[in-house]
């Protein structure tokens, strides 16, 4: 029975507009906001601190420091309101969940960049 639910979910799932990235990467998420009859696109830029789930429930969390306050937002891959995700930087991290960033501020909360150097 569960595989019939999964079949329905996978049939309706379209996350092809979202590129592949992982925790530590710096991304800019464009998402649609509906205010009454008006629609506009808002952008949220920050570091991906986790990618979790599978299929329809797959989601990622982006963390940024706004002013002096840490802000986190969870975006489902399946949500059509997530219009576009741009990967700006690749991060060099050794964890898949970067919860340790929550306790850090300033320079310590910075993620080293992963650079691709030709040999």
């Amino acid at each position, binding site marked *: *029975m*569960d595989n*019939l*639910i999964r*079949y*329905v*979910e996978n*049939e*309706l799932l379209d996350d092809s507009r979202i590129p592949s990235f992982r925790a530590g990467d710096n991304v800019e998420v464009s998402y*649609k906001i*509906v205010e009454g009859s008006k629609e506009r696109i808002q952008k949220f830029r920050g570091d991906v601190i986790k990618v979790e789930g599978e299929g*329809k429930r797959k989601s990622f969390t982006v963390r940024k420091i706004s002013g002096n306050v840490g802000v986190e937002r969870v975006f489902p891959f*399946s*949500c*059509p*309101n997530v219009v576009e995700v741009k990967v700006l930087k690749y991060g060099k991290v050794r964890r898949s969940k970067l919860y340790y960033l929550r306790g850090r501020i300033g320079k310590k909360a910075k993620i080293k960049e992963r650079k691709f150097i030709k040999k």
Partner: protein
Amino acid sequence: MNGLIGTKIGMTSIYDEQGKQIPCTVVLAEPNVVTQVKTEETDQYNAVQLATGSKKEKNTSKALQGHFAKANSSPKRKVVEFRDFDIPVNLGDTLTASDVFERGDFVNVIGVSKGKGFQGVVKRHGFRGVGDATHGQHNRLRAPGSIGAASYPARVFKGMRMAGRTGTDRVKIQNLEVVKIFPEKNLILIKGALPGHKGSYVIIEK
């Protein structure tokens, strides 16, 4: 009234055009067999009898075996009659989800609700109980209170709502939208929750 018999599979959610999340129930409606067609001339009313779900022949009574044989069908577990069926059908035909329903239809769904066992009046009838847990209140938090007067009428009226077996009632939920149909897997997506546990039979009427 058109309809089909299906089984409740479980719930999920989908996104609509506005990006709003809609809770949906997945219903598996395997092809239903027409096992009897009743008409004004033969039965004084118009109806169609549908059947679904497989059943072993040794567990089927001889009378029912004959009934199914008339429709050229193997024995079925669930048999339901629909009054005034609009789609013209013949004995032995099979009906699938896409024959009866389409996207955007509003349907009524009938099922048997989940059994809750012996429950008190708060859960069973929505009594409010005693408001306070403190202030001298001892052990009557979820008690029903008075069930009647004393020497007159000297009895409890019939139908007084009390504790007892809860659930397993026939429940009809009206005006649910058909969100999507998957003809290749005989699945119907219906907006909202349906009565009953997973795997239970539900009757979908249009």
